[in-house]
């Protein structure tokens, strides 16, 4: 079995337009989820602290 940490990449794969488009969509989705999570935690904290009471 080859060692994944020492194996050399024997070339370069030029990403296709579809692959780049899929990666872009994933990046946007990850960014949106992280932003949503931050807002979620922030709002919960505000509620728990009674800011909206």
């Amino acid at each position, binding site marked *: 079995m080859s060692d994944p940490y020492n*194996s050399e*990449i*024997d*070339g*370069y*794969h030029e*990403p296709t337009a*579809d*692959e*780049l488009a*899929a*990666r872009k*969509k*994933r990046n946007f*989705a990850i960014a949106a989820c992280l932003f949503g*999570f931050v807002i*979620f*935690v922030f*709002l*919960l*904290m505000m*509620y*728990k602290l009674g800011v*909206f009471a």
Partner: protein
Amino acid sequence: METVQHNTGNVPALSLAGPGDYYALMKPRVMSLVVFTAMVGLICAPSSMNPVLAAASILCIAAGAGAAGALNMWYDRDIDAVMSRTKKRPLPAGKMTPSSVLAFGVIMSMVSVFGLSMAANYLAAGLLAFTIFYYFVVYTIWLKRRTPQNIVIGGAAGAFPPMVGWAAAGGGITSESLVLFAVILLWTPPHFWALALYKQGDYGKAGIPMMPNVKGAKSTRLQIFIYAIILAASCAYLATTSLGSPLYMAVAGLLNFTFIVLAFKVWRSNAGDDVMGLDEASLYKVKSGEKAARNLFAYSIIYLFALFGIIASSSLLANFSI
């Protein structure tokens, strides 16, 4: 970076998976049932909850259910590839790598449990964590490939959400939340075995010991009928708790009567019988029986939504003294 090994040599290619594939990993149809039953638990709990915190709790429960679904798909990727029902899922379809699915499932699990502990309380968060553990470890890894009782015991994973919702609202663990748990637990075997009766070839191909493959179709049909009766009894018991009302009793009685009639038709049918060497008349009986099993499977989904819908409606009507 996420990669898929569909390229030549050892040069990794970028994945073509989109957000929709990650959504599919979360088993949206199962998630909708989990969300609905958890909402019913939350609505029926004796203590009220701030609507924003309630919405946040439901979101976390949905995320937890989705995480469990993703972990299940990660572990079952080998058998999913051979079953017609599951071979188009993102992993067997080659759209994602197993490691990315595992990471997604683990991260979602942690985020959902942490989020619920913030939005609701530690008991609800603990129950959600246990539900994910139970579905992934107890059902998927331990029981699913070992025993025909897999969905009988494993069905508890799908039965926890109303308890989580109830606990999230601050209701703790009470006899009412346990009965809600029992109703889904007892509903699961007839629901899945009805499906297994006309899909047993698929399960057999994947080596999953579903009841029709192991004990035979005749025994399965009888057990479906027995579970339908026990399920009706548990619904009758629910009427004796604080969740019972005349409206509930009328609707639940009708729903359970229909369930028992359909289960009886399956029991008296030839659904799932071996068709090898059968004459035309016997073959017709098997096909007709499979129709009865399909009817029960479809009805069982409507049944659960309607039953929990009426439980929630009765509770809301009682709260508003209508």
